[in-house]
């Protein structure tokens, strides 16, 4: 396995094809790069898999999404076509269930990935752009979730969209215009489904894919970050394994585990399809947002108790904007390598964020009637 073996004597047909392609695409440079790529090994190495898991689940989303696209019809027929997919087409329920479950698992994996990056302080120089692009990817992923949720046009998706669009609506001055542009009119209707569909299958992928490519390119460029505890060790005490094939093999094993978990969840707990959306039917009892929107929803509700009316809504949006802004900009104020006061503050801010997310989510589910 030395670099010298590659140009030597490939007299076979496969070798000739390899040479032809290699001459034009430079495969051996790539192979050499892959051979030198290393992944650090330490007590926190487990967290390195979560970006890969997110990527895998995104690929599952693309694949199952295209399969759903084969029968889905946006607009007036949206509900009927999803009913057909779920109850008429063979295994349609399974494809749809896999798409919905994988979406949730992907958001979860991205969150784990984000918090692990945060606490390992992997956003520090030179990885600031990795953090920023990752945050943008999470933002797009949640819009993916929000737009995809409406597409079946059943009761739950109808009310979720109605309520969800109240958030942009509460932005001062431009809010109502933004909300009605998204909604395609004063009410959630077939026009809303049609434009959410365009968003979900064309606009968002067109934004997501290049950004994902950029994010992955940065990972290749700078390699895995190590946590500060590991950074403090002298070079000879640090361990690493080659990416090819050792880490890749483990990565693929994680993908296989993820696929099995997904298959199990999707088949044992098939995703439900409610009744067709009807604006004249009152919202069903116990209606609540998806788990990843539960926390902001609950925070707004709690804040509304303290500051009733419009002032509460505006205060809530300001608070969110501030919190998310601080979170996104963390690479620019936690910059020192030594663990000083700022590093500790960033650490506590992260713990506070996790606590607030968990607590409000628990309260949210607790108070569902």
């Amino acid at each position, binding site marked *: 396995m030395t670099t010298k073996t590659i140009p030597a004597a490939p007299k076979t047909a496969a070798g000739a094809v390899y040479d032809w392609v290699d001459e034009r695409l430079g495969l051996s440079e790539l192979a050499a790069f892959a051979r030198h790529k290393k992944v650090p090994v330490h007590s926190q190495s487990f967290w390195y898999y979560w970006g890969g898991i997110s990527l895998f689940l995104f690929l599952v989303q693309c694949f199952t999404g295209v*399969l759903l696209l*084969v029968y889905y019809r946006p607009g007036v027929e949206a509900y009927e076509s999803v009913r057909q997919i779920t109850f*008429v*087409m*063979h*295994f*349609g329920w*399974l*494809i749809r269930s896999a798409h919905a479950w994988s979406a949730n698992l992907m958001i979860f994996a991205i969150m784990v990935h984000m918090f692990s990056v945060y606490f390992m302080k992997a956003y520090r120089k030179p990885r600031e752009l990795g953090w920023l692009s990752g945050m943008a990817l999470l933002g797009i992923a949640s819009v993916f979730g929000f737009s995809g949720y409406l597409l079946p046009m059943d009761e739950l998706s109808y009310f979720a969209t109605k309520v969800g669009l109240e958030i942009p609506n509460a932005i001062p001055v431009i809010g109502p215009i933004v909300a009605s542009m998204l909604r395609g009119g004063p009410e959630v209707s077939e026009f809303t489904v049609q434009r959410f569909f365009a968003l979900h299958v064309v606009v968002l992928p067109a934004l997501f894919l290049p950004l994902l490519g950029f994010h992955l390119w940065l990972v290749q460029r700078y390699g895995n970050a190590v946590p500060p505890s590991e950074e403090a060790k002298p070079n000879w005490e640090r361990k690493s394994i080659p990416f090819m094939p050792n880490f890749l093999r483990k990565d693929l094993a994680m993908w296989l585990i993820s696929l099995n978990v997904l298959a199990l969840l999707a088949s044992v707990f098939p995703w439900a399809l409610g009744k067709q959306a009807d604006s004249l039917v009152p919202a069903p009892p116990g209606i609540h947002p998806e788990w990843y929107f539960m926390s902001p929803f609950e925070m707004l509700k709690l804040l509304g108790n303290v500051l009733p009316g419009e002032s509460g809504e505006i205060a809530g949006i300001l608070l969110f904007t501030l919190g998310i802004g601080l979170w996104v900009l963390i690479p620019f104020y936690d910059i020192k390598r030594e663990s000083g006061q700022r590093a500790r503050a960033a650490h506590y801010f992260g713990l506070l964020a996790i606590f607030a997310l968990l607590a409000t989510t628990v309260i949210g589910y607790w108070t569902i009637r």
Partner: protein
Amino acid sequence: MSDQVVLVDESKIAPLTESAGERNTRRAFLAAAGAAGLLYTAALAYPIYRYLASPEEMALSATAITEVTLKDAQKLPLGSVLMFRFGPAPAMLIHHADGRWVGLSAVCTHLGCTVQYESQADRIHCACHGGVYNAYTGANVSGPPPKPLTLYKVAVNDTGVQVSRA
């Protein structure tokens, strides 16, 4: 000295050459792993295949249809045609000027375009590549069609027309 060297060599070589038993175990393991991988892939591919093949299967059950009743089709004027679906495929009911009824498949046997009945010429013509069929028997008369159109049995009564496979 030389005796000792031979002894050492043997002990070094022995663990490197695998016994037939070890080779079999490894072969069995690889075979089992390969089979498990194939099964896994098949378990993933089968639902996807069935999902994508659903309309095909629905059409197959429609193909099983052997008879179509066309309500009120007995009122079809002389020298005109009624296009209808026989199962999933287009078909035509012709009421000739001489009063004869003819039921035919309307799918050109050349490349599958839907053919047209021309009452003036009393023939069936395919606009795609100029195929011509006999409007009574469905026989391919000229142009590229390799085979005649399928002829159906027609039974006319006061309430409608029944078209069935011959």
